[in-house]
């Protein structure tokens, strides 16, 4: 007796895919290893993280992750729950791009002489909403903040003028419907203050401490 599964496998792989960008926002403890614990939730499913920002929130001791992935809502909902399930995660939200206001920041380093000569710095600043962060004799650093396309545009403009270095930050996003977020976080930290992250104090004391 043999059972044939081939036809079924075919049907299962023909499901419609309606994925889009989602912004996952997680409030967490500041703990060593948590980044990895969260990252493997994505890598385990072979999901690419488009952008990841983690930094202290407005409350001391509470961190905020902003993670962008391209997926279906069903997958994102399950992942958000999986992240929230981790012992050191406080709260997770997920939103479409329409539900957030988001920005990325970019820095561009270009040779000052060429820029001064060929493209008027002023025009660049005006047309692309850029800001000169540093102007030195040898190079100038511009900064723009905006959506991906906006920062991309300036790369194209600057490329012919000898772009030396470029860097873009991860996306950060503010949720449109976030009433009470700050108040709740403050209240939470007030009633249950967190503990400090403990690092390895011994890495630089090799010779002093132990011999065995």
């Amino acid at each position, binding site marked *: *007796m*043999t*059972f044939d*599964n081939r036809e*079924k*496998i075919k049907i*299962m792989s023909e499901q419609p895919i309606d994925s889009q960008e989602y912004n996952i926002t997680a409030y*967490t*403890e500041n703990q*060593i*290893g948590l980044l*990895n*614990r969260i990252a*493997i939730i994505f890598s*385990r499913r072979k999901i690419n993280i488009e952008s990841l920002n983690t930094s202290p929130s407005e409350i001391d001791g509470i961190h905020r992750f902003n993670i962008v992935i391209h997926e279906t809502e069903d997958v994102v*909902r*399950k992942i958000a*729950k*999986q992240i*929230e*399930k981790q*012992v*050191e*995660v*406080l709260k997770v939200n997920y939103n479409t791009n329409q539900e957030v206001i988001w920005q990325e920041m970019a820095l561009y380093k270009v040779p000052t002489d060429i820029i001064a000569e060929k493209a008027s710095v002023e025009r660049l600043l005006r047309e692309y909403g850029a800001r000169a962060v540093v102007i030195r004799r040898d190079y100038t650093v511009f900064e723009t903040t905006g959506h991906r396309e906006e920062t991309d545009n300036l790369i194209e403009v600057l490329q012919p003028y000898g772009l030396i270095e470029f860097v873009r930050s991860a996306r950060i996003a503010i949720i449109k419907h976030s009433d009470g977020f700050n108040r709740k976080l403050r209240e*939470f930290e007030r009633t*249950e*203050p*967190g503990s400090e992250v*403990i690092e*390895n*104090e*011994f*890495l*630089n*004391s*090799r010779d002093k*401490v*132990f011999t*065995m």
Partner: protein
Amino acid sequence: MFTKEEPIRLLQEKAPQTMSGAEMTLRALLAESVDTVFGYPGGAIIPIYDALFDFKEQLNHVLVRHEQGGIHAAQGYARASGKAGVVFATSGPGATNLVTGLADALIDSTPLVCITGQVFAHLLGTDAFQETDIINITTPVTKWNYQVTEASQLPEALAKAFYIARSGRPGPVLIDITKNAQQQKFGFSEYTPCTHIRSYRPAPIVRPEYVARAAALINQAKRPFVLWGQGIILGAAEQEFLAFIEKSGIPAAWAILGAGALPTGHPLNVGMLGMHGNYGPNMLTNECDVLIAIGMRFDDRVTGRLDKYARQAQVIHLDIDPTEIDKNVATTVPVWGDCKETLPLLTELIEAKNHPAWRQRFEQFQTEEVAAVIQDELFPTSDELTMGEVIQQLNELTLGEAIVVTDVGQHQMVACRYAKFNHSRSNITSGGLGTMGFALPAAIGARFGRPDRTVVAIIGDGGIQMTIQELGTIMQTGVDVKIIILNNQFLGMVRQWQELFNDRRYSFVNIASPDYVTVASGYSISGKRVLERRELKSSLQEILNHAGSFLLEVMVTKENNIFPMVPQGCSVSEIRLR
């Protein structure tokens, strides 16, 4: 964990005592009521073993033969006793040998606290001798893990470890302790167990309005069906479950880790779910109108093809873990919370019913299954012995009172299908991970956890050879485990798939065995080999009567298949009887 108001008072009350991190670790275990530890020493954990030398009276340390054996033993201990299992291992290879057990314990929700030694803190990241990054290696297979580099962090880390392992949906936790932290002396006053972590909510808040909606759905149901899993056992909610089932009169079937939560002989226990489960429960999953899932996670071995799973039914799902709800099967009414809390609320609101006609459907399917499969399996007329008749004969002798520990393969499915369980925490098997090699060490651990109960391990000729070294643990500790090897001279389950799905191309499933009786005798364990039916019952009686461990090898028919079967990729109602 020191609570916010408590620490100052506690510290003042008792003058701190200077103590090493190693000693403190053992005192923490005692404070957590740990009585047994399974472990294996090595360089990076020597300070803890040195401290253990002075704690031999209070802590029973079981020296295993391999760390994988150690962690499976701790799993068996935890599953049989309901307590957290504790494991010691050294750094590097000792720690990596725990990985399979951690993965097994995570997927089967088993509370474990594993303590690994680690190289000195100042050597971390230098590829020191026996250094492995065990925290990162084990992150995907632990509920929580933490590295301690200073003795003063130990009390809080260990308290959190036990709290996290045991609370909510239980799971394995690993604490990695650098050698300097074990050696270091510090002022330690009193151990305070952890009862709260601000970022961790072990169980969701129970929402009575959802319980009410679930009750309304159940009350109007014509063909309700209950599926239960290990959640009932983990929540110690067997009584609450029984009350619910008896009042509702709803037929109930189990996922294998749930076996025994309702006695096998209970009239409303209609059998096992899933790939090799019973005929009725699988067929009628696709006919019920309300499906009530309690403490189970709709594993693919239970559901078969999902887009043809219970599409007609409204689904109520009771679970403590919110990530399980709507994960695989869309729920009509979710009931979040510990079922020990939610079940009584539900029972209160439901009407007492009987559902005679609907229950009869299960009986009809059962009659069919008996005729097509069960009769020949349990009472064969052919010359060769079947696995089923071994379990049947065992039932007649143990009367459902034994703890049955199984390995992975055909014998596991036969044992789970046919073993009788009068009590909860009696069926110990590797469900989610399907780890061959689990049974022998898990049986050892189960017996340490429940020395008052008979422990029978049912193991295949493949699986026994994966952790056979643990016969040494039996020899040295004298623990009493009844080992039954069901030898079909094949990696039977894989052979069955090759027969059914790969045109009988038996590719590397023909596995040779040593002379198990001789091997056992090398370990001073009594052994016997059964070749014929007439010796079977008396041999089983002999091993059960024997004082101490006994290994019984039963030669069974080589090419038997486990039926019924839901072929992979098929719906549960496409289950085949042959």
